[in-house]
């Protein structure tokens, strides 16, 4: 299953400026893991030590939040995953 990941500004440093990536997986978790394998620098900005999604990262699939299922959320071929940082500005 091929899914497209939109890479946010904070992670582009670790993807050599690349802004989208094609990954394989049937859940959000599998897709993000495959992405982090391609770009190892992104792992600590996505997962905590136990492999859980960080508490300030939100994943959208085709514009809809995957919260609260998060990593367990199923994805389909051609879906688009967006990674958004929930940090408040101010």
């Amino acid at each position, binding site marked *: 299953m091929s899914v497209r990941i939109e890479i946010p*500004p904070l992670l582009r440093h670790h993807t050599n400026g690349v802004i989208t990536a094609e990954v394989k997986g049937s859940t959000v978790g599998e897709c993000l893991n495959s992405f982090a394998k391609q770009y190892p620098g992104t792992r600590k*900005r996505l997962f905590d030590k136990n492999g859980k999604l960080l*508490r300030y990262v939100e994943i959208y699939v085709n514009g809809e939040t995957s919260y609260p299922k998060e990593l367990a959320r199923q994805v389909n071929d051609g879906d688009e995953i967006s990674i958004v940082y929930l940090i408040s500005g101010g």
Partner: protein
Amino acid sequence: MKGITRKFLRVNLSNGKIGEEAIPEQVETDFIGGRGFGIHYLYRELVPKSDPLGEHNKLIFVAGPLAGTTAQAVSRWMVYTKSPLTGALARSVSGADFGAWIKFAGYEFILVEGKAERPAYIHLTRDTCRIEPADELWGKDTAATQEWLTRRHGLNTRAACIGPGGENLVKYAAIVTHRRTASRCGVGAVMGSKNLKAIAINAERNLQLYDPEGFKKLVKQQIQTMMANKAFQYHREMGTTGNPENTSELGIFPTKNFRYGRLDDYEKITGDEYLKHRIGQFGCYSCAARCGKIHHVTKGLYAGAQSEGPEYESIWAFSGPIENSSLEATIAADQLCDDLGIDTISTGNTIGFAYELYEKGLLTKKDTDGLELKYGNHKAMVELVKKIARREGIGDLLAEGTMRVAEKIGKGAEAFAINAKGLELPAYEPRGSKSLGFNYATSNIGGSHSYGYATQEVLGASFPRRVDRFAEEENADIVIFNQNNVAVGEVGIACAFSRGWFPQVYDKLLIAATGIDKIAERGYLMHVGEKIVNLERAFIVREGFGRKQDTLPQRMLTEPLHTRGSPGEGQMIRNLDKFLDRYYELRGWTPEGIPSSEKLEELGLGYMTKDMAQYHHIKAT
């Protein structure tokens, strides 16, 4: 018939006249409330070119149409006036309970004019309003002032007041309520110039809503949406303290007076580090987020310092500009600013500027009362905060803000003054977050992030579209969208930090509160947002602003950014003119940055065409 009357209170400090006035239904429909009322009345009432610190300036304290209700995160309030720091518009937003109390007293806003002969405060209840002597209060800090007013008028009192900063006319003095501040653009100095120490309101919950039952259901929906929102949960946990790490890794945490994009040791000022000092939290009226995190210092030089905050901007203001990574010093400086009533952003930025002047030899120990302004010296930073608020020694000069300090010092000092239209730039580097940078340049209040915050660049939001944060004129539409969209949120003065519920219920809540059906029309709120920004633009055009002032500090246009390993190394603003051409074109303004007759007509501001026509011949220089 809507069946509810919205009104405001006018208080004239010169002649003591106090009176209520109804807000005409047409004005309600056209501007809805909050920021819409603020600019509508300021534009209408202020004689152009009035001295901001003179008797003729007006000071408007506005609550939003949803303030004081059970709806969440909508009880913030704002101040509208002409800024003594910039000479342009002042729009300054604050929190805590004061917005709700304005509504409980029965008003949408309080308009203060004239000047009291002696120090005074306004005491307002649901039935009475008096101008009282404040000689006893003059000189007190903001905490002591509020304590005094509560003792005098009872526990149900909420006050907005100034501290020594406002009394001493520090050009960037704040107005403080609880420990929340309307801090930007020098609104506290305007209050000080009127000899007005405080407005104290005694009132109990008492509101008229157009559709109370419908409103109740919508609030339920709002709370459910909010609670199910991960962003809300994280904001509740951390407030804005998580942002320094984010902006440092983006290379946009301005450091050493905006020469670098992050501190070398930024790991020392992350949210998790602040968490170690956290002892409590505070929230605004009817907001479950309680995002004000209270920090306390237990040992060392600053033992005993305690502050509600610092939030992101204040964390930056007392770390980035002078390259300081002592959290304890930052907490102490933040506390002083709130007590003394001065803006953390302008204070921190101006101090960073002074450090660079010292480095370049344009200020010496003789000028600084013996303080050594060497980068990293946080003790001197904390001393300067006190001196600025009291206008002591070097503080008297720095209290004027970077633009005037540069003018006074000369010798090329303006090259290091980091402001837009005279308002000191905040905690986002414009060269690494260019839509925010161009927002600083075009904002009608000067260098403010909150006038057109670029969530797309800082947080990776994809609405209305994704952006390349280093692109320039290609993102003119995004700058416009962000500015108009912020204005939409501020007709209801909804908190910018808690917006997960926004698309679902904001417009419905506004209708249920006010009965303005037009809000339901597709695109109407965006139309009002655009109208507000245009009216604000017209306000500053009338004050002499145009294309020439829509600019950024020299440093951003001529020096590359150094990010110390974060992305964006070498970025500069490549072509401001090209950006402005595109921005004005999309805005429907003349190439000189003046709203065209066609645009004014389209926005229902046709009555201003004559006002603006006299500026259309002006050519940018």
